[in-house]
């Protein structure tokens, strides 16, 4: 039976309720879950932690601008096949010349075409029941890719190139499919129609505190408070690139080894702010703001 029990996150990963429910729904219905949201909100983390927690196989397909369905499903390795098929002739020639050394095909047999099929993550996922298949950053893909992909997935069946072997998976053992997107490119409507869609909202301060606790359980509470105040203030001032979850976690990692008092001082002086701010113009803006009015900058970090 497919893994369709409700999963609420693990001790390492705080799964937003809505996301957990959407994920459960997708698995129960056997549809892919399409997750969108700001970068650094843990889209990719979901399937990773889920598969870790439930001890399931995880297959990852990182999408790039040259992705195509062949890579995703399976392709035939022509080069190896040609090489191996020549080896027999070569070996025969060598034998004629009384040469001892023989070339090896590494256990592959040119007679069996299946030996030369390189299976992609989709096929691998279909072959291991109840696995998890992550298709990461689908918005990077060429335009046709999403639709080709769904066509392939909706049949629950792949036919291997050249060998003609059929890889099939039952509805019950269908892998849990998670697709992430950063919305850099609009995905085709038909594609979205076949997915369960979930948009991750940016976590509010309360949720963020819980996330921080999962990642840095030992850190002083006060330090987290001050750091989160600064963090949410920076998100409010309208920077070109607002800092995200990933960045606050990194910043706290830097601050963590310090004694609380020292840490708070460092935070208030915005030390190591490079972990949060990623563009030069943003950095300049903030430095100017702080230089002009250092106390004020911090005080303003409470919502006005």
């Amino acid at each position, binding site marked *: 039976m497919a893994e369709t029990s409700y999963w609420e996150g693990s001790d390492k990963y705080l799964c937003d309720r809505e996301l957990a*429910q*959407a994920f459960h*729904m997708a698995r129960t219905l056997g*549809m892919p879950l399409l997750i969108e949201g700001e970068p650094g909100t843990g889209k990719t983390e979901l399937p990773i932690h889920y598969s870790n927690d439930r001890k399931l196989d995880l297959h990852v397909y990182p999408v790039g601008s040259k992705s195509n369905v062949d890579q995703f499903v399976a392709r035939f390795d022509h080069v190896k096949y040609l090489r191996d098929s020549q080896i027999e002739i070569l070996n025969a020639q060598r034998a004629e010349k009384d040469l001892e050394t023989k070339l090896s095909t590494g256990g592959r047999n040119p007679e069996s075409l299946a030996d030369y099929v390189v299976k992609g993550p989709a096929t691998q996922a279909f072959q291991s029941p109840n696995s998890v298949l992550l298709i990461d950053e689908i918005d990077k893909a*060429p*335009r046709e890719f999403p639709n080709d992909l769904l066509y392939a997935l909706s049949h629950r069946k792949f036919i291997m190139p050249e060998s003609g072997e059929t890889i099939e998976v039952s509805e019950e053992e269908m892998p849990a499919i998670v697709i992430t997107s950063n919305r850099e490119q609009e995905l085709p409507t038909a594609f*979205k129609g076949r997915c369960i869609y*979930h948009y991750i909202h940016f976590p509010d301060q309360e949720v963020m505190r819980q996330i921080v606790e999962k990642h840095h359980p030992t850190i002083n509470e006060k330090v987290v408070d001050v750091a989160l105040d600064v963090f949410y203030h920076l998100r409010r001032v309208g920077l070109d690139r607002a800092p995200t979850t990933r960045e606050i976690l990194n910043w706290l990692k830097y601050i963590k080894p310090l004694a609380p008092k020292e840490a708070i001082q460092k935070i208030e002086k915005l030390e190591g702010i490079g972990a949060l701010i990623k563009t030069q113009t943003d950095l300049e803006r903030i430095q100017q703001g702080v230089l002009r009015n250092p106390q004020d900058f911090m005080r303003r970090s409470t919502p006005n």
Partner: protein
Amino acid sequence: MFNSLPAYFRNYGLNADVRTLLVLRKAVEKNLVKTLGDVYNVLKGIIVKEPTEIGPFTRAYYKYFLNIDILNGEKLDDAILRSETFKQWKNKYLEEADQEFDESLEDLINRFLDQVHLTHYDIKELVSGSKIFDEDNPDLEDQEDNSNSFAASAERPLNKMADYSDLSLEELLERLEKIRAQQRSKHSGGSHWIGTGGISAYGHGGAAKDGIRVGGTGGGKMARKVMGNSNFFPIDMDSILSDNNVDAVLNSIKGVVEESAFEKLDVPGTIKTGLQRGGLFIPEMRHDKNEKLQIIVLIDNGGWSMAPYIKTVRDLFKKMKTRFSHDLKTYYFHNTIYDVVFSDPNRSKAVPIDKLLLNDKNYRVFIIGDAAMSPYELDRRSIRNWQAIQKKFKKTVWLNPEPVKYWNHTYTTQVLRQIINMFPLTIRGIEQAVLEMNRQKA
């Protein structure tokens, strides 16, 4: 079931069709839908495909299932307070509450929202507390019979669980529809969907009275947040271009990048690598990727009518340039083109029209102007120039900041429209212009 749902949700600009119903049906079959909150969640997952659809979806949902009409820009709390549904729910709730009523209106709304958005996930967590209570409840055995009539009688015993596992899918679906119909009829609104005091009106479980923490389910909180945030509503596609929606335009203009993953046989590559392999020719494939984006922008910056748009338009194409870093040429003209265009906004550096026409024919030309001038200004020479531009650059469009309804009142606009495809300078207009461009072969 819910035959009217797709059409109803489409009115809110959402994509709902027969497939929506099929997936919903499957979800009911798979036991995913047990409460009204579940209906919200499941439909959201199926229908919403963009963050900007969450707002319209929430509005459509409240109207369709709860008969609560959220007006444009209205806060969720206000809409609920206004509604008949809430009033009836409140009366019933207060009636059934044993203890003295000491809750503020705000608490009441929270409780109402919690019950609207109560999902079966919440119940599973909460029921354990009431389970003990239920175990020594003698009525539990009878519950199965009672459950059939619960839709008709609003008086339901609290803290009991109803078990519908014997019912067929069809019966369940029928019931869902029936409750919805009753919810929308004026006389018996109120608590058909939403249990007062915590029992779920539809489904396997219920929670004990006070079993739900206020604000505990989260769904209501989110709905509230969505209603107050413009990010969850679509940008008005027909609004005129401004600094605020330049980024949205940029997204639509992205369509001018032609990309494809088609593979082509790379003949020179195959020969080269084949020779390197000692005569073993293996077909080399090459991605046929065409990202050539060459753009000419012709901006009418004369006359006061164009003044408000020049900065925005320039910003738009500047942003575009940094985003795509392709070939972009900007020229200026006043009202119409005679023999020259200008390469600077002050119109001091003239570029002969013939030189402009020497550009590669693959350039895409955007002309931005109101096309309105005195009829004598648009003389035969000028018309010939526009025709020449259109003839040379097949992918030419005119973007007009004037509202479409005025176009027919201006003679010159009508004339120019006949020569060059004209679109309004709105987000939707630009989107259509880009689509039209992509249709033309250079």
